[in-house]
């Protein structure tokens, strides 16, 4: 049972305070928390669960904003953290981003949202679709609408139908002129390559994102051609479990609009679409660095937005790095970023240069980890393929669209 929620800006200022129970939590707790996180250095390093002298604090840090919840009661910690994450997600969707100014400009909306999301310290609903029906998001459409119609209320005056329907995530009476469903496979590749170039770990985390605009109460089924590769699946509450267990078919009544249908992981992949080969040699106080990047190109798709990023060890005084393709930049905190963009067909991009070590240091003993970013449109690297999408119960024709994209997740190359 949470007693209070605070939103703090990145300077420690209380932007919002929402008391949830009869026991008021004094604001001074935020001061204590802030002193604590300053003494820890980076607030990102602060533990998510902290015991203050008077309360237990849960904190989630997103985009410079700290979501802080207080309780004095024993409760499942994951529930509190999970809830704060949801609050952050919902605010992100509502305000079209998450930063100090947005929160301050829309604090009334944030209050309204929190009011509906949690009462007496217990979470009620965090389903975005339902909240959107209760409180209209402050987007341009609603602003234009308010100017045209003259009613400037951002609160719909009817209650969401879902609160009374048997499918809690959907209203019974949605109507669309054009019925359409878009299914996106969004994948992230996590890989670790050790200093010998061997693939230590390579797996894909994927999400099936659905955007559905269908009239009435549709019943959809989605099936894959190769569901057996999926590991660790998690479903949106709308997915029925039995059909999945017996036939690996996703059967569900979709919420209206955009939602995450399922997430999955595919393990033990054999190769990465891109290779990054760093070489570090050091002697006599200088260190030579050479990084080669290339495409393995067995997918036939181009690789976009390629970046290589690494942290220069603190014992390096200066670095002079150049590349034959793209740009190299070194920030004040010794983060070096090499922006390659699209990998050219005719040559292999490489970055090389020398780094000067601290005086007295002969050789480099700390080896940086190179983090690689890339994006590939039109391909799901896990190999997952959608077989078909069917609509039952509603006799409409509808438009189906499928897309796939793969990005680099935690793609690390050790040197």
């Amino acid at each position, binding site marked *: *049972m949470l007693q209070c929620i605070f939103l703090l800006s990145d300077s420690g200022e209380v932007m919002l305070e929402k*008391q949830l*129970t*009869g*026991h008021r939590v*004094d*604001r001074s*707790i935020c001061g*204590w928390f802030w002193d604590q996180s300053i003494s820890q250095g980076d607030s*990102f*390093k602060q*533990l*998510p669960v902290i*015991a*203050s*002298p*008077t309360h*237990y604090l849960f904190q989630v*840090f997103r985009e410079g904003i700290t979501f802080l919840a207080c309780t004095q009661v*024993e*409760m*499942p*910690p*994951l*529930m509190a*953290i*999970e*809830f704060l*994450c949801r609050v952050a997600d919902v605010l992100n969707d509502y305000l079209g981003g998450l930063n100090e100014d947005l929160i301050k400009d829309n604090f*009334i909306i944030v209050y*309204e949202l929190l*009011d509906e999301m949690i*009462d*007496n310290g*217990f979470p*009620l*609903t*965090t389903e975005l679709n339902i909240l959107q029906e*209760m409180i209209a998001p402050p987007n341009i459409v609603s602003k234009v609408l308010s100017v045209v119609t003259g009613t400037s*209320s951002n609160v719909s*005056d009817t*209650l969401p139908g879902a*609160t009374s329907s048997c499918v*809690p995530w959907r209203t019974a009476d949605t109507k669309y002129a054009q019925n359409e469903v878009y299914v996106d496979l969004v994948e992230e590749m*996590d890989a*670790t390559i050790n200093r010998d170039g061997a693939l230590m770990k390579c797996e894909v985390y994927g999400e099936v994102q659905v955007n559905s605009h269908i009239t009435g109460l549709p019943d959809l089924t989605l099936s894959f051609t190769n569901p057996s590769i999926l*590991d660790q699946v*998690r*479903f949106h509450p709308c997915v029925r*479990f039995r059909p999945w267990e017996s036939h690996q078919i996703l059967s569900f009544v979709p919420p209206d609009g955009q939602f995450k249908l399922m997430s999955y*992981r595919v393990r033990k992949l054999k190769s990465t679409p891109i290779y990054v080969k760093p070489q570090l040699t050091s002697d006599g106080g200088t260190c030579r660095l050479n990084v080669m990047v290339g495409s393995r190109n067995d997918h036939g798709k181009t690789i976009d937005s390629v970046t290589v990023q690494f*942290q220069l060890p*603190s014992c390096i005084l200066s670095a002079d790095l150049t590349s034959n393709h793209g740009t190299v930049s070194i920030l004040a905190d010794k983060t070096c970023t090499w922006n390659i963009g699209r990998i050219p067909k005719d040559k292999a991009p490489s970055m090389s240069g020398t780094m000067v070590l601290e005086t*007295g*240091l*002969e050789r480099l*003993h*700390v*080896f940086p980890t190179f983090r690689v970013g890339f994006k590939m449109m039109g391909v799901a690297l896990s190999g997952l393929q959608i077989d078909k999408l069917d609509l039952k119960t509603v006799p409409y024709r509808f438009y189906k669209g499928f897309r796939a994209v793969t990005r680099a997740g935690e793609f*690390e190359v050790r040197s």
Partner: protein
Amino acid sequence: MAPPPAHPQRSPSPSQPSGKSEVTDLRSQLRQLAGSRAPGADDAKRDLFKKVISNMTIGIDVSSLFGEMVMCSATSDIVLKKMCYLYVGNYAKVNPDLALLTINFLQRDCKDDDPMIRGLALRSLCSLRVANLVEYLVGPLGSGLKDNNSYVRTVAVIGVVKLYHISASTCLDADFPATLKHLMLNDPDTQVVANCLSALQEIWTLESTSSEEAAKERETLVSKPVIYYLLNRIKEFSEWAQCLVLELVAKYIPSDNSEIFDIMNLLEDRLQHANGAVVLATSKVFLHLTLSMADVHQQVYERIKAPLLTQVSAGSPEQSYAVLSHLHLLVMRAPYIFSSDYKHFYCQYNEPSYVKKLKLEMLTAVANESNTYDIVTELCEYAANVDIPIARESIRAVGKIALQQYDVNAIVDRLLQFLEMEKDYVTCEALTNTKLESSSMQVLVKDLLRKYPQWSQDCIAVVGNISSKNVQEPKAKAALIWMLGEYSQDMPDAPYVLESLVENWDEEHSAEVRLHLLTAVMKCFFKRAPETQKALGAALAAGLADFHQDVHDRALFYYRLLQYKVSVAESVVNPPKQAVSVFADSQSSEIKDRIFDEFNSLSVIYQKPSYMFTDKEHRGTLEFSDELANLSINAEAGDSAVPAQRVEANDNDLLLSITEKEEGRDAASNGSAYSAPSYDGASATSAASQSLADLAFSSTSGSGQAPASSFAIDDLLGLDFSVGAAATPSPPPLSLNPKAVLDPGTFQQKWRQLPLSLSEDFSLSPQGVAALATSNALLRHMQSHSIHCIASGGQSPNFKFFFFAQKAESASIYLVELLINSSSAKSQIKIKADDQSTSQAFSTLFQSALSKFGTA
């Protein structure tokens, strides 16, 4: 003297000089708009309201606008209404009289046609939390519970809990709990059902301390029909409500095995849920249901493993942290379950360090014969990491794995590689990263050598090459010196290194290093006497002159030993070595079991059972089998004495966890400052705690236990006089055993069993109060009077002590509870005794001892 009541309007703080004028500005604008029905007035009002609320949010006190705000609130605009509700909810408590003004329009809104407005109004009405307005709540709540819109009903159900907290009797008189129960079992809307469940749990748990009936009602919540009813509908519940239901199911004890399997089959798909809280709550149900069936329990581990690992890798770092804490608990109980999944715990480069740290702990815990090589290889990668604390942690982890006896060859090789890495560094200047790393590692190498003497030869070659000058950290230095002494026969220059260290004795600041140096020189002496003799003489001389007591004593001890007989000294300093088989584990299995019982709670994160860090009062409303509640040391305290009750709640913790007293105290002190957190003793004079203290005192005297506090003072003064005048001639009528011993468990048991034989209130001398500020001063003082302290706690101004004493030449024990309020200089003692007849005499003795406190 009670402090003057806080002025409702605080003066604006200097940092917001414009605050006050802005507020007056707003007031006049609000007044102008109050009666206006002009078109556009609502928009203007909305801007104004927004300003007021933004002022409220940044902490400026705008409560003085209450009247104007209420006047402006007659509107049909729902946003205005919401803002107004927000404002009213925030300030009603400080303006109870003005809050009455809002009742009217809130009650009207409760009858609005729009269910949204009905709900909002009802929620705000219940959030006013003003005690003298409860009569207006009952009506709207009653109709809210019967409303045909489920939204209003959900709000009303929570409203009942709020009402209960304002005035329990009103809530019970209106028979709301029964209505809730009916709703819970019959309402078509699952959110209403879930809210009823949480409301009933809260109300009955609080009520059950005083009422048998409520306790029975609370039990029915975990009865078969209710549980089955909830389980059958579980898929309709929202994810948060599912957590609530699952938490309840975990308490349910099924009658036979088939029931257990039914429940598990029903809940199996919950493990696939996207919400981590649901997954973890389901895991808890599974684990608890199968506790008695060992083989199924093992299968459950296998079953929940994958979903939990998913949570680790899919969620945000914060979520991973919470899940990893639970995995750590599981792996402690069943280390093999994750032994093939160790790759899940490999660290990613940009994870926050709290996650990395837990992952390293997991890797250490899952290491076994088959995976040690891979894990150690991975850990070594981190050792060259840019993140220094993690690099250190990972080397430590390598050492820990080595101590678990798996594949030692590979690991010792690895560790030696680190040392060689260091070797290159030795030539380099100051403190570099790797040096820090290897210093922590040397400590480990030492531990390793203690365990695997056969490896010493290899290590010595490496260690011998490390120049001690380059090792800075005391722990590492001590480890290095230990090795020098231990293996001096194999290291050609050991005596000379030691000699140079002895020469720089004065520059060595750490006593630990000096102690090790003394011993090492001694050891070296017995192995290579001619070379070490000079160094030994110098070391003993320096040691004898050392200002540190331990160093001095050890030098003296060695000196005398050598004087007595060299062979004896050798057998003392250089006994035959035995390998250390296991290093003691830090946590007892009992505590681990206890934490396991509290799966899916904060206990797991802190790795402590909840009684060690939470107040009893604040322990979850779901705490059904609370054995600790049975302890109830002071059942006689009235419910009204809120602060006293809190102190009491802490007692159990104090008694139970004397060793953890330090940690416990932070949490235990919660009670003394609910709304005004006092982070240090400096707040002793704060008005809030002062008034609390006064309240505590008046309530104890109200209960009729202190009819003669002034009498007690006279008595005390007289006593003081007589004791002072005739200190030696007449021995006290009662003499105590100065070496009495009593373990906390027995104390607790006795305290529970024995009747209260005496309770007195009296005042403390000002010197005594002043002396309280020094920690433990009172304990030492009382000990000098043969009265021993077993537990103490509290925060200024309220302190609490438990003492015991034993009658000389008798087994009769006296137990004392002493409450001291330092701001009012009052104290209260409660005495329980084996021998009731002498308790008055003991009380006199105790008080006379106490009265002398601070005067000496």
